[in-house]
């Protein structure tokens, strides 16, 4: 209790933790001290002076240190002569704060008057108008008149693009520096700055392209005026006309919580459309931040090229048909095929879709052959056992804790995790990075170990072995010191990705890291809160696909199957050899991904998709599915948090939910009646998957009080991020939490270590793809195919910056622009912005200019 400080604010006593600021303490008891520059997630600066309050401290006798008492026995309080900024003053015992006195009111009026002295007051055309802290606080605390001469208002540029995504209105800016501080303090991208001084002060971007940050959209949320707005939502609608709908990111394996703002629109023929995407607060997942891919990639949901009706191939042409006919045909063709049939799904689909997908194939079609179409990383069975424990929050890691990141560039693969890991490291957690190349996270790491591509498994094994040995080695070995730091940490979280790894290698790394979490035999890290393994999955619901049993060897809930089916590679081989005669593809595009050359010897190909993909073009039946914005469902994040999303827009054309299509075909194959709601499918999931027991749509929608308070009536405080009213989700318990887990078998994996320069593929957040290509605003930001080489290697290859070369990758020629990268190890080359390829290949450059 000694950490609590009691103070009095407007006569109300409040106890808050030591170090709390006066504004926060007041906020906790619902006393809104107005602020502009202060933000609960940023360091206070006290620039705007809006939070001026009277702060009094109890008077102590200089000699004795005793409190001086008034005649009536209350402590004497000295308020000093001036008002003080509540956002910079830390509370102290016995402090008395007065926020409703005349001097305070006058100060607020003056500050508002001053801030408006050059503000254009063009609220009618401002995108922030209606959810603007300046507007609200002016109404609440402004005088309504001014002594300023209107003719002295500065006329400045109203439309300054800080890049293609964010526009600056120089007149509206009140110079609070929230955006600049956010870029610097929170996301370490100091690409915008103040320029000039006084009334000429303006925000400028220092980067090329302008405002080059994955987090730029967040500055528009926290901007307390309409100075920063997104190009995406420019004049899209007035905020009060929008209907908020809770959702989950369809890209992010961390499961970022979003809010869609939807509106019916004449331009879209009277359809409800998504006008913008804003963050939804979930302090356990994304706090109140989302990166620009989550914010700006939503247009695909309403794209004109979405499939509207089922297509059936007749006389060699895909022609539109009715649902009844399509379902009848698919059921008829697949009935009784048994092991001649196979299924491939994507890991963007919801848990409900994936559960019915495996049920449809295993019980309806009676084939064991099903897998993810494009699996790039293994280890779901490991995370089920030693994954990060339920109730964990990466935001709680700090001093005494450790995080290890293996073979993953979190900043590109999942910026939310990058942010959370970075912040943990800044709070004092030990960060160990094992990587083939420098990444954005290295700056915050205590131990960085670079290995040559192909040596990831060996290096991780060294780390694990070093962790097992207690004795001190004579000479300081970086791996040993890193291992000691990890193993002696109070809490240990391990991330692993798939950069430059083959599927088998990722499996071994998952197991090695699993063992690392189990090294401390009696009291292993695994199973304790804020400990465990996190796989950096490529998609939003890869974890869910594991849980639902989209795996040739596991059923739902990781139940090992007696006779495992064929995996994706074997299915692709079977298609070519004729062993597989019918293929059901849902939400994945093997031909477009280059995993399958053509239809091979398939008799029958069904594709269930949003768009006419390369695979769909060759299909016999194409079934139009609904995107996640049109229906409800659940995704399971990489931290194994099951989260609900809600329907935001009406279905496109005649499209149906993936699970409904599967259930309706399944009905013809004797799987029983089609459930009439996704919640009922989830009920079935909760029965079949032991870990999901006790979850239902109602429990997933539960919310708790979160700090800081973010939401509509608290705009001035936290920005326009939405408060969470639709569910924080539930993290399911890993096996290690209930009982001890045996260490994993980590057989040696064959690795490819080619001679010469070793080439790996690196992920980029804006790698071109079907979904992201529909986002027009991001067109300029899409990662261009780039080959990073070390200078020494470049001269050896006789290439230089800006050369356009063809790189041979697994028999294909990939065009790329050469970029020197001095940070790369010699002998390592990196391809970025190109489609996925696994493992390490020898760099072969064909033709250069």
């Amino acid at each position: 209790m000694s950490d609590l400080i009691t103070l009095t604010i407007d006569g109300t006593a409040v106890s808050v933790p030591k170090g709390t600021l006066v504004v926060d303490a007041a906020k906790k008891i619902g006393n809104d001290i107005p602020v502009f520059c202060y933000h609960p997630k940023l360091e206070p600066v006290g620039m705007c002076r809006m939070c001026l309050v009277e702060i009094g401290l109890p008077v102590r006798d200089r000699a004795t240190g005793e409190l001086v008492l008034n005649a009536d026995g209350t402590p004497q309080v000295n308020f000093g002569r001036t008002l003080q900024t509540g956002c910079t003053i830390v509370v102290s015992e016995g402090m008395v704060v007065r926020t409703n006195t005349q001097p305070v009111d006058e100060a607020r009026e003056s500050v508002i008057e001053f801030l408006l002295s050059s503000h254009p007051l063009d609220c009618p055309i401002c995108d922030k108008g209606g959810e603007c802290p300046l507007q609200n606080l002016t109404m609440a605390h402004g005088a309504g008149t001014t002594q300023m001469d209107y003719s002295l208002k500065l006329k400045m540029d109203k439309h300054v693009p800080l890049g293609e995504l964010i526009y600056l209105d120089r007149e509206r800016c009140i110079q609070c520096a929230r955006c600049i501080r956010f870029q610097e303090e929170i996301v370490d991208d100091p690409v915008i700055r103040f320029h000039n001084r006084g009334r000429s002060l303006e925000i400028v971007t220092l980067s090329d392209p302008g405002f080059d940050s994955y987090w730029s959209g967040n500055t528009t949320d926290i901007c307390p005026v309409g100075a920063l707005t997104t190009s995406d939502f420019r004049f899209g609608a007035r905020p009060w006309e929008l209907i908020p709908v809770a959702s989950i990111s369809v890209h992010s394996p961390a499961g970022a919580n979003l809010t869609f703002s939807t509106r019916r629109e004449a331009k879209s023929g009277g359809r409800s459309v998504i006008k913008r995407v804003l963050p939804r607060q979930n302090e356990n997942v994304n706090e109140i931040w989302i990166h620009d891919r989550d914010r700006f990639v939503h247009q695909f949901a309403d794209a004109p090229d979405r499939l509207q009706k089922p297509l059936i191939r007749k006389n060699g042409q895909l022609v539109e048909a009715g649902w009844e006919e399509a379902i009848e045909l698919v059921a008829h063709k697949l009935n009784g095929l048994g092991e001649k049939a196979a299924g491939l799904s994507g890991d963007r689909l919801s848990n409900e879709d994936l559960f019915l997908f495996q049920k449809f194939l295993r019980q309806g079609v009676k084939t064991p052959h099903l897998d993810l179409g494009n699996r790039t990383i293994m280890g779901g069975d490991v995370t089920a056992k030693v994954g990060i424990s339920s109730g964990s929050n990466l935001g709680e890691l700090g001093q005494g804790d450790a995080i290890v990141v293996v073979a993953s560039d979190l900043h590109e693969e999942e910026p939310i995790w990058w942010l959370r890991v970075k912040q943990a490291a800044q709070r004092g957690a030990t960060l160990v990075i094992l990587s083939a190349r420098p990444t954005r996270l290295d700056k915050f790491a205590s131990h960085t170990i670079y290995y040559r591509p192909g040596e990831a498994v060996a290096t991780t094994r060294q780390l694990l072995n070093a962790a097992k040995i207690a004795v001190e080695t004579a000479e300081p070995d970086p791996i040993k010191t890193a291992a000691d730091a990890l193993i002696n940490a109070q809490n240990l979280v391990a991330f692993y990705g798939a950069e430059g790894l083959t599927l088998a290698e990722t499996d071994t790394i998952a197991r090695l890291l699993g063992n690392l979490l189990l090294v401390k035999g009696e009291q292993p890290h695994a199973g304790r809160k804020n400990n465990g393994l996190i796989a950096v999955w490529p998609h939003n619901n890869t974890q869910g696909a594991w849980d639902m049993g989209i795996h040739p060897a596991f059923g739902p809930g990781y139940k090992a199957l007696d006779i495992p089916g064929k995996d994706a590679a074997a299915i692709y081989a079977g298609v070519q050899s004729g062993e597989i005669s019918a293929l059901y593809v849902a939400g994945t595009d093997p031909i477009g991904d280059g995993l399958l050359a053509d239809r091979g010897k398939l008799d029958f190909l069904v594709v269930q998709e949003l768009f006419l993909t390369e695979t769909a073009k060759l299909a016999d039946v194409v079934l139009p599915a609904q995107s996640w914005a049109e229906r409800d469902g659940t995704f399971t994040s990489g931290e194994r948090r099951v989260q609900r999303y809600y329907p935001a827009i009406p279905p496109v054309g005649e499209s149906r939910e993936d699970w409904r299509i599967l259930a309706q075909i399944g009905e013809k194959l004797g799987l029983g009646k089609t459930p009439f709601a996704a919640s009922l499918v989830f009920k079935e999931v909760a029965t079949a998957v032991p870990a999901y027991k006790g979850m239902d749509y109602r429990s997933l929608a539960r919310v708790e009080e979160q700090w800081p308070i973010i939401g509509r009536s608290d705009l001035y405080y936290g920005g326009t991020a939405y408060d969470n009213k639709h569910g924080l989700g539930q993290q399911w318990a890993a096996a290690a939490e209930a009982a001890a887990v045996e260490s994993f078998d980590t057989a040696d994996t064959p690795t490819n270590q080619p001679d010469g320069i070793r080439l790996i593929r690196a992920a980029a957040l804006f790698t071109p793809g079907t979904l992201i290509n529909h986002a027009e605003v991001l067109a300029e930001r899409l990662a261009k195919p780039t080959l990073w080489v070390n200078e020494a290697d470049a001269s050896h290859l006789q290439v230089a910056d800006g050369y356009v070369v063809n790189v041979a990758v697994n028999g294909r020629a990939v065009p790329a622009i050469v970029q020197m990268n001095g940070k790369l190890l010699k002998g390592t080359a990196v391809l970025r912005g190109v489609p996925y390829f696994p493992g390490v290949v020898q760099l072969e450059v064909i033709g250069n200019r």
Partner: protein
Amino acid sequence: MFGEIIKGLGTTLKHLFMPPVTIQYPEQKRPVRTRFKGRHELKRYDNGLERCIGCSLCAAACPADAIFVEASENTDEARYSPGERYASTYEINMLRCIFCGYCEDACPTQAIVLEHNYELSFYDRASAIYTKEMLIVDVPVNGRATPQVVEPGVFTRSIPDMENPK
């Protein structure tokens, strides 16, 4: 009693020779009062630019939810109104409108005015929705039609500058 009948018929007779109060509508129309609130019009500036900036405040003020506005961005190559924003869709559902004039009060540019036309009748509900083309007034004599091609940097402000109180 006979006298009363004569008296009553006398009143009738008197009225026969009085000028009639009825007028031959629609051939004849009676002028309305200056502050009469009839059908809305969207006004233009003298140079032909539209006053409406698509701010949607009229729609927000409307108690009957009769107004629907969608905004788009002006460019100097295709300028509809001064400043950055104009109404690309402007619809009033005349069946919903109660002619209260709140929209007029809310308008920051005096773009929407309830004028004197009261002849609003429709054969179906869809034709009760007046679009921007139907609501906007003709281009003034010395003005140009919108969209206009204008010199850059001239029409930068949507809302006329505020003047000091006198």
